[in-house]
């Protein structure tokens, strides 16, 4: 179902609770009563169009806002993606990390197992961090430079250098198998490890991994379906400038 501006935001959240962290990243807090999406956006000075594109892309994996793409400033998308990155790095990963560490004090058949999970998760964490840093240090500056060139319809020395150093095509190629490790970790914990006697914590970790995976999928959908196609369009019109 398409999310529209005159729907109540509370109903939207009932529709898909995964949107709670999303609206939070926009600075929207829960407790908005019966206000519609449009009203809440106005109160919080959030661009309504951008908000709608984003929640719809989150909510429906087949949603593809082709025409609306043109109207969303890249800067907004990048800012939003940076906020999600920060929430992964500062909150989500360390939450799971903490739980794995407290797993070490549980009574387990073999303590080595927990060390294995810990090491594996650390490996995943550094891979994801590296991926995020690459986006922040290479991809986003490139995307912003592209937007600047379009806006000014001219090159400066610095944005020309950035423009020529990268292309969004490269990003599409690189943008894939970070999730592989996460899936493996889940598989190992489900299929091949015996949980400790007090299994609640162990179960919570698995559930957290599922949620993290889901959230990451949503996140990359924004990158793949909103950001990338927009940049491809802009690249094309720049090549006409050259």
């Amino acid at each position, binding site marked *: 179902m398409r999310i529209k501006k005159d729907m109540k935001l509370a109903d939207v959240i009932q529709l898909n609770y995964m949107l709670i962290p999303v609206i939070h990243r926009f600075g929207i807090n829960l407790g908005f009563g019966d206000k519609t999406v449009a009203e809440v956006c106005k109160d919080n000075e959030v661009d309504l169009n951008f908000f709608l594109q984003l929640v719809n892309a989150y909510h429906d994996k087949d949603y593809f806002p082709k025409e609306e793409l043109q109207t969303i400033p890249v800067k907004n998308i990048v800012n939003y993606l940076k906020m999600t990155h920060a929430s992964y790095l500062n909150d989500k990963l360390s939450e799971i990390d903490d739980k794995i560490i407290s797993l070490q004090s549980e009574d387990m058949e073999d303590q080595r197992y927990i060390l*294995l999970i810990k090491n*594996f998760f650390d490996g995943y964490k550094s891979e994801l961090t590296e991926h995020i840093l690459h986006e922040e240090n290479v991809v986003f500056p490139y995307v912003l430079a592209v937007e600047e060139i379009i806006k000014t319809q001219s090159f400066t020395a610095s944005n020309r250098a950035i423009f020529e150093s990268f292309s969004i095509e490269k990003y599409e190629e690189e943008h894939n198998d970070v999730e592989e490790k996460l*899936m*493996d970790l889940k598989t190992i914990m489900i299929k*091949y490890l015996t949980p400790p006697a007090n299994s609640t914590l162990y179960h919570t970790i698995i559930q957290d991994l599922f949620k993290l995976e889901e959230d990451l999928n949503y996140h990359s959908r924004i990158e793949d379906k909103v950001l990338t196609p927009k940049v491809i369009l802009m690249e094309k019109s720049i090549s006409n400038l050259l």
Partner: protein
Amino acid sequence: MARSTILIAENSCIIRKGLRSILQNLENSEVIQLIDDKEDVCKIVTKSKPDILIINPNMLPGDCLDVKKELFATNKLSLVLISDKKNIEKELKADAYINYSDGQNAILDKLQEILNKKNKSVHADKSSETISSREKNILKHIALGLTNKEIADQLFISIHTVVTHRKNITQKLGIKSVSGLTVYAILHNLISMDEVK
């Protein structure tokens, strides 16, 4: 797990359809066809190869004591007889017997038992699903951090063979990444933790 398929052959329409409706409560199974004509039984069973045949003895072709053997020797078919006669188990051999007077739970329990047995034997058959000793050896080398080329050289096989083994290992275990495979190898004592680089 694949769904088990069930055929019902019974000449009473009420019982046929009633039984189908009861069996909808059975998990992982599906009634694929109802048969009301004795002449069709053999043909349909051969064609649709059900996992379970529920049949009224008077629908059975000919008089045979060991029905299963006679009729369905080639199929891995479980036979369930449904009838209003008492003591039918003394006359005909089958995997289970349903009496018209049985309650819903009794019927479901009997079929569930058959399904459980079937799934167990499927499980046993899937020894090929666990990794072979050859694959274990390859897995060990992967976990030690060797590249495909290095593994091929050490084991005197082609890279192509190594790649095929890797694909099979990944498929069987559901683990893709090298670090995931390494954890598996340690858990199953193929390598020790100290050997990991």
